[in-house]
């Protein structure tokens, strides 16, 4: 058994099975935690009927999704109607293939590294995630178009414009990391944040981290960027006509997308499976126990980001569409381009891992952004200056 697993192919196969099972469970329980956290934020109790603390709620939900009548409305484009949820779900799942979970592993404890605890480690791992992410827009577009509903199509239209717009600052923020690390291989990006004189990229480039975080919210269609499913304006969004398990696939796909995005940002900016100073989490620790510890740490960081996603969803209101576009094209894009340019300057000066240089540059850029936005008097988002003043008293009181 161990001999077989020492082959990277079979180890990857094992990892694949493990990750898919863990991921499906995690998606189901993300929905549970989403509901619990929303309840907590809104001072409610949340699901508590099915099982202790409502812990069996995802099973009940899954059963409901499976057993509901599977309605295909008349006048839909049937092949595409059926294909759209599959694309949304499938694309969200395959992004996981390149996330580095546990570094190198020495399975038989003979001092030599046998395999990497990762499904695949291509030289283009980072681009792979970007490519897969850019395909996820098809699920939304086809879902919105195929069901022959104008509201849903409007949602798909918004969503496409949003995803295409936010892909650009996202790419620029990632370029900062790529230039700093000098590689596209995700495992090497993790390793480049570890060791003497190296810190996590979030310390070097907090501004880029923030931009990537914002664009990830937009890419996953989460509040405050969930214009694709603005139920107050669009009935339900691009999945209005979907029911039963097809809706469930869209729903789970969104959570899978969130988990991939969290894993991505953890690898790029938060050192992946690494915690500074903790024995067992360093690149030299290659025992099986260390691998399990690393996987736990990675999963914990991803869970923390999932919590952030949910926290923001239940705290912030939704953007208006023009605010959304202005934020991306006039706000995030110039800033992220400046950051990417600054990262190249740092490489030229040989200071790409020096904290004062990188962090100082980020702070200067932040200050510059604030000053410029003040001088231009056209905030990147929010109200326009040529608007009448808002009366803060309610209309009833004013009368």
């Amino acid at each position, binding site marked *: 058994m161990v001999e077989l697993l020492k082959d990277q192919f079979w180890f990857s196969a094992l990892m694949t099975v493990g990750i898919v099972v863990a991921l499906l469970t995690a998606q189901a329980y993300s929905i549970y935690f989403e509901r619990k956290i929303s309840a907590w934020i809104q001072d409610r109790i949340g699901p508590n009927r099915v099982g202790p603390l409502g812990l069996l709620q995802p099973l009940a939900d899954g059963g409901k999704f499976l057993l509901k009548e599977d309605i295909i409305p008349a006048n839909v484009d049937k092949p595409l109607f059926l294909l759209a949820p599959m694309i949304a779900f499938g694309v969200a799942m395959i992004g996981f293939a390149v996330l580095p979970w546990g570094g190198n592993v020495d399975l038989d404890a003979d001092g030599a590294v046998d395999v990497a605890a990762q499904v695949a480690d291509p030289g283009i791992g980072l681009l792979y995630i*970007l490519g897969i992410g850019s395909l996820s827009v098809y699920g939304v577009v086809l879902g919105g178009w195929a069901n022959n509903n104008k509201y849903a199509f409007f949602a798909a239209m918004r969503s496409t414009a949003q995803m295409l717009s936010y892909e650009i600052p996202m790419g620029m923020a990632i370029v900062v990391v790529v230039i700093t690390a000098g590689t596209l291989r995700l495992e090497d990006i993790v390793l480049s944040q570890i060791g003497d004189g190296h810190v996590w990229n979030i310390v070097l480039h907090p501004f880029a981290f923030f931009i990537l975080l914002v664009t990830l919210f937009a890419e996953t269609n989460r509040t405050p960027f969930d214009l694709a499913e603005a139920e107050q304006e669009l009935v339900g969004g691009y999945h209005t006509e979907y029911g039963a398990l097809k809706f469930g696939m869209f729903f789970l796909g969104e959570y899978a997308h969130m988990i991939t995005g969290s894993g991505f940002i953890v690898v790029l900016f938060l050192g992946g499976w690494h915690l500074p100073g903790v024995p067992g989490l360093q690149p030299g620790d290659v025992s099986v126990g260390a691998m399990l510890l690393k996987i736990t740490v990675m999963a914990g960081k991803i869970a923390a980001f999932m919590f952030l996603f949910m926290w923001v969803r239940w705290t912030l209101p939704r953007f208006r569409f023009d605010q959304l576009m202005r934020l991306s094209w006039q706000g995030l894009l110039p800033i992220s381009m400046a950051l990417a340019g600054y990262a190249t300057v740092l490489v030229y000066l040989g200071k790409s891992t020096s904290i004062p240089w990188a962090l100082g540059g980020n702070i200067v850029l932040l200050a510059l952004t604030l000053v410029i936005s003040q001088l231009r008097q056209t905030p990147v988002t929010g109200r326009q200056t040529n608007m009448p003043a808002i009366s803060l008293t309610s209309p009833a009181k004013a009368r």
Partner: protein
Amino acid sequence: MNTEWSFMVYATFALGAAAVYFLLPHTGRSTKTAGHVLGVAALAATMVLCASKFLGTEGANIFFYLSAVVAVGSAVKVITHEKPVYSALYFVLTVLAITPLLILQEAEFLAVALVIIYAGAILVTYVFVIMLSQQGGQPMHDRQSREPFLAVFGGFVTMAAIAGQMAALPEEKGIVGDFAVAAATTAINDRGVDNTSLVGTAMMTEYVVAFEVAGVLLLIAMVGAIAMSKKRVPAETALTPMPVPGKVGREVEPF
């Protein structure tokens, strides 16, 4: 051997051309079944010819055959499908089916760039424009192709001319993408230099002028597109604030 082989290639391509001709949308009796049968036969014959001359049937070649069949089949569908949305989506499938071929050729950077740029950005806008413009039924120009015979014949001649050159290639059976499979299945300690860094180095040293020129060209195109699409607003209406309730955009009432 070589002449015979070339004639066999021409024959299979003629078969494929006939299949495309039958599959192209036209009025009158449907010839779809005949087209499909001919197309499958032509594809199978091409694959057998490839297998007999260049490739064996073992190992990573399976991926070559799979993605090649999908790529060719969906490429045919791009031009023969009656609904433009499906054509655009088959185009996406063609692009996605080509990426494994590029990865087998160790050009993984190109493969992923193709997915990000083509499938992820350009074709989404294509699909989108088609969806927006095609709301009603199908117009005549989608149900009947113009000059199908000339088009098919031109395509056949071009393709056959290219494929005929394959006869001149040396006859050796190897496994496509030997390297890629080896790299994916060995432990990560013995990695070689990967394709991405080589592409990057070449772009930044040997071809830096071409690279920069391409960038400037794209920038000019972008500026031009913005300049053309920008609406000219008279100065007085643009400057005076008009807080009209219910207007979307800059003049909208906030609450």
